[in-house]
């Protein structure tokens, strides 16, 4: 991991400019999609908001996943789509391969929603998402970057009581000890969020991911304690900023160094506290007079 880090970061540094550019394009697209809806509330609206919206828009541009506008005309058939929703990983025909080639094989299986809900969803998507509004969040300011950093490190607490990002994630060079690595142990692919901004489809994608996380553990952790809009804006701004500015890695694992230095300091402190402890008598006595 440590040896790979420099290479990865070099890659990030080169790629970030392009990605940020893309991200801002996404933002434009997002803004366009926020048109008032028409018609009555469709059955698929609510499930779409909770299960699909974090990664997809309908006509709002791509996020992590593709924009679903015009889906009806793109997919091979309604049956294909149903099967794909239930088991995306297991669907490997030509069309599925094409989608995966573009967006990666990251779509979570939705079989748990049940056939009824899935059919509602398909109707809803085929109908072009009637009643779906995309809330337009305000643009980020430089103050948001700072607030985002403080939210990330826990200097400022998340308003609804969610855990600070640093408990499980790290950002290269953020603090001396880096951040948590717990996310690795709970199975997430990414503990280091330096490049989360680009990975998650730029500002719009990351905002969506944060507002309603779909990741296995984060989903549960933030289910009852969602981040507020302002927090989402700030964190996204911060992560966006980090993805631009992260310097090449220092090339060493500070955690180990701090750990060793800390352990030595602790031992010295303990030795001083118990300086008058009994060591030995006979050995010194006999050794000293040899």
């Amino acid at each position, binding site marked *: 991991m440590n040896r790979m880090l420099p290479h990865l970061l070099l890659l990030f540094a080169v790629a970030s400019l392009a990605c940020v550019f893309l991200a801002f394009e996404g933002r434009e697209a997002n803004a366009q999609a926020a048109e008032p809806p028409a018609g009555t509330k469709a059955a698929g609206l609510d499930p779409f908001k909770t299960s699909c919206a974090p990664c997809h828009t309908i006509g709002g541009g791509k996020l992590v996943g593709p924009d679903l506008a015009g889906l009806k005309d793109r997919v091979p058939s309604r049956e294909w789509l149903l099967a794909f929703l239930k088991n995306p990983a297991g669907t490997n025909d030509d069309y599925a391969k094409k989608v995966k080639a573009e967006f990666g094989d990251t779509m979570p299986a939705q079989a748990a929603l049940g056939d009824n809900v899935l059919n509602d969803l398909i109707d809803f998507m085929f109908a072009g998402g009637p009643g779906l509004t995309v809330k337009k969040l305000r643009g980020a300011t430089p103050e948001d970057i700072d607030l985002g950093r403080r939210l990330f490190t826990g200097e400022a607490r998340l308003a609804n009581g969610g855990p600070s990002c640093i408990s499980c994630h790290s950002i290269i060079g953020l603090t001396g000890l880096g951040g948590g690595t717990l996310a690795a142990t709970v199975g997430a692919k990414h503990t280091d969020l330096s490049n989360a901004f680009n990975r998650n489809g730029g500002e719009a994608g990351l905002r969506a991911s944060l507002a309603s996380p779909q990741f296995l553990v984060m989903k549960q952790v933030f289910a009852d304690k969602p981040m507020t809009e302002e927090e989402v804006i700030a964190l996204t701004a911060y992560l966006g900023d980090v993805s631009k500015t992260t310097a090449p890695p220092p090339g060493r694992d500070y955690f180990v160094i701090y750990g060793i230095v800390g352990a030595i300091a602790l031992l010295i402190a303990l030795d001083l506290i*118990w300086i*008058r*402890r*009994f060591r*030995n*008598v*006979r*050995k010194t*006595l*006999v050794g000293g*007079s040899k």
Partner: protein
Amino acid sequence: MNVRAQVSMVFHLDKCIGCHTCSIACKNIWTDRKGTEYMWFNNVETKPGTGYPTQWEDQSKYRGGWEVKGDRLRLKSTGKGRIITNIFHNPHLPTMDDYYEPWTYKYEDLFNAPAGTDQPTALPISKVTGEYIDIESGPNWDDDLGGSNIYAANDPNLKDVSEEQRQQLQAVERLVFFYFPRICNHCLNPACVASCPSGALYKRGEDGIVLINQKRCRAWRSCVAACPYKKTYYNWSTGKSEKCLLCYPRLETGQAPACFHSCVGRIRYLGLLLYDADRIDEIAKLPPEKLVEGQRDLILDPNDPNVIAAARKAGMPEQVIEFAQRSPVYQFVKVWKIALPPHIEYRTLPMLYYVPPLLPVLGSTANQVYENGVDAKAIFHAFDQQRVPMGYLASLFSVGDEAKIRYVLRKLVAVRTFKRAETVGDIPMAVALEALKLADTTEAEVEDIYRMTSLPTFAQRFVIPPMHREEAIEAFKDPQDHKREVGFGFTASPKRGL
């Protein structure tokens, strides 16, 4: 007045021949089990020497005993607050090396070795690890001044002795040593009891014997650090601490403790002392120079009608009072004042007293002939010409006060002078009587001291009171039932855990 009885002891150091019979008797009874091999409830040290464990008297290292802080006594090694940070690692414990690593020999090699050109050898193996070891020290490594340039030279009692005198101690004409047998002192103000976080140690109410409850001991080892005489030991096998129990099962059946019973030099005396328990705290806090007198003060006259009345009121059985009146220890400590407590500056108020030894005089080598004594014609020497510096004995027995040692030695010399004048007659009686006067003693007292030191019978040396265990047992059970159900001895062997 809160009158209590204490089984107390006197060791007469002039009579100890350093045979270690006492140590062996004790070891065979109490400490030959696994985990106790290194313990010597009774040990005999050569003085000057560093003893067992090495330099135990140096409390700047071992931190045993009490100190006065403000107007309170506090333990040097631990306390209610200090125990919290130290409970899982007591920083003042002697290491095994400071006692010694117990060993045996691989005797079977003597029989099983294949035939060869050399004698088979039994190699030493550790009794702790079972591995071969290089023996580096033993419980009595400096016996009879062995290695004296290291051990004797570093005796903590020599710290107040001048450099010149120290040098002289090593010179052949001045070479001197005596034996110092030690057991638990069953102190009146025991540091071991006070230090125990589990309350496992206690001082028996009826006879003052200090014991460790093997069921309550939790291996914190606070007592090991707190006892300034290093007379509690940790058993690594059972996970409990153990100490001298003054052979209480023997005492309860009217027998002297094994080390007393077996003593070849007949140096040991045992009997009751009555004391005023209300004054222990006050006495233990006295300034160092007043401690010896203070402790003597604490001991009550068993013939005083007031004391007897108070003892009766405290519920002391009549027999106990009678035995206290016949106690040889009372005579030595309070009447003759020739027995002194060891290192009372540790403030535990030890109840084992020592009669300091009359050591050989300086030799002189006038005319190339070695003369025993500076003044060749004197039969009994002036003890200021003793080979061991007076300050040394004072450091051991009187917190550095040489006058107290002189008082005792003068009396001991007076006894000898008087008896010599009486039986041999080569000293004029007038000289002897003069010596008595100087020594603050009388013919009658000298006769008593002579009888008790030279001719005592078993029953005079050990005046063992009836222990009235049945009365103690009665508190929780019918003593007859107890005897039938439990019998004597251990009902469960001590082992780790609750």
